[in-house]
């Protein structure tokens, strides 16, 4: 099945000890591997102020995970676990692969256009226009144009 990329952020009570957080992350990683997923990255943002009160707390311990999954059920299971865990006061999962795909497409499109444009300008113009555009002077401009061609 399609490999999907998710962001999973959860917030713990600010009073949660380090080991507790490590334990939660550990169980999540284990669950992920059991369901054909993989936790790529774990970031502990530490205690930071929340924009609004959650569970009567103004601060929270943020933990961020980036994970791959081939199975939608994994997310369901992870969220169930987070819901059951007392120390976790808020969590959110975002599916990101489609946006990243779109981003890559845009980058590719831009590179394609950037590659096409100088050749187009050099073709009919063949004179002052590209030289003036490069600005740095006549000497470096042709060298730069020749480099990708060779």
């Amino acid at each position, binding site marked *: 099945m399609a490999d999907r990329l998710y*962001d999973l*952020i959860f*917030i713990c009570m600010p009073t949660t000890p380090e080991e507790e957080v490590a334990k939660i992350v550990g169980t999540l990683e284990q669950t992920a591997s059991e369901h054909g997923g993989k936790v790529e990255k774990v970031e502990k943002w530490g205690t930071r102020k*929340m*924009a*609004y*009160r*959650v569970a009567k707390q103004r601060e*929270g311990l943020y933990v*961020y995970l980036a994970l791959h999954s081939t199975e939608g059920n994994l997310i369901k299971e992870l969220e169930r676990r987070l819901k059951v865990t007392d120390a976790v006061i*808020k969590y*959110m999962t*975002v599916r990101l692969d489609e*946006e*990243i795909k*779109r*981003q890559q497409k*845009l*980058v590719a499109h*831009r590179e394609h256009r950037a590659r096409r444009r100088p050749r187009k300008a050099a073709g009919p113009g063949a004179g002052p226009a590209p030289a003036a555009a490069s600005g740095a002077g006549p000497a470096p401009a042709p060298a730069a144009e020749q480099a990708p061609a060779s």
Partner: protein
Amino acid sequence: MSEQQSIPRPSGPSGPREGRPSGPGGGGPPRRGKRQYFRKKKVCRFCVEKVDFIDYKKVEMLQPFVQERGKILPRRMTGTCSKHQRWLGVAIKRARNIALLPFATEL
């Protein structure tokens, strides 16, 4: 109605007068008549920096597009292009969900 009154408009959020009925988005052409002020043409900040993905985790990047009370600033004030405003809206809403940005600032 009285166009003249609405011209020396303070910058920043200031109530219902902000809703200009028409005109091209952002810094339109200066109105005819007395040239009392000069409006700079606004450009989309994300287009200038060639941003392809607005990350909801970067709060400091989203903050300038949110009012103090937590509202998303309209395009006509920030000059963001429609594509990036759409992405920005999604990013801000995600950030709100995980308490990185407020839905509304409590008093």
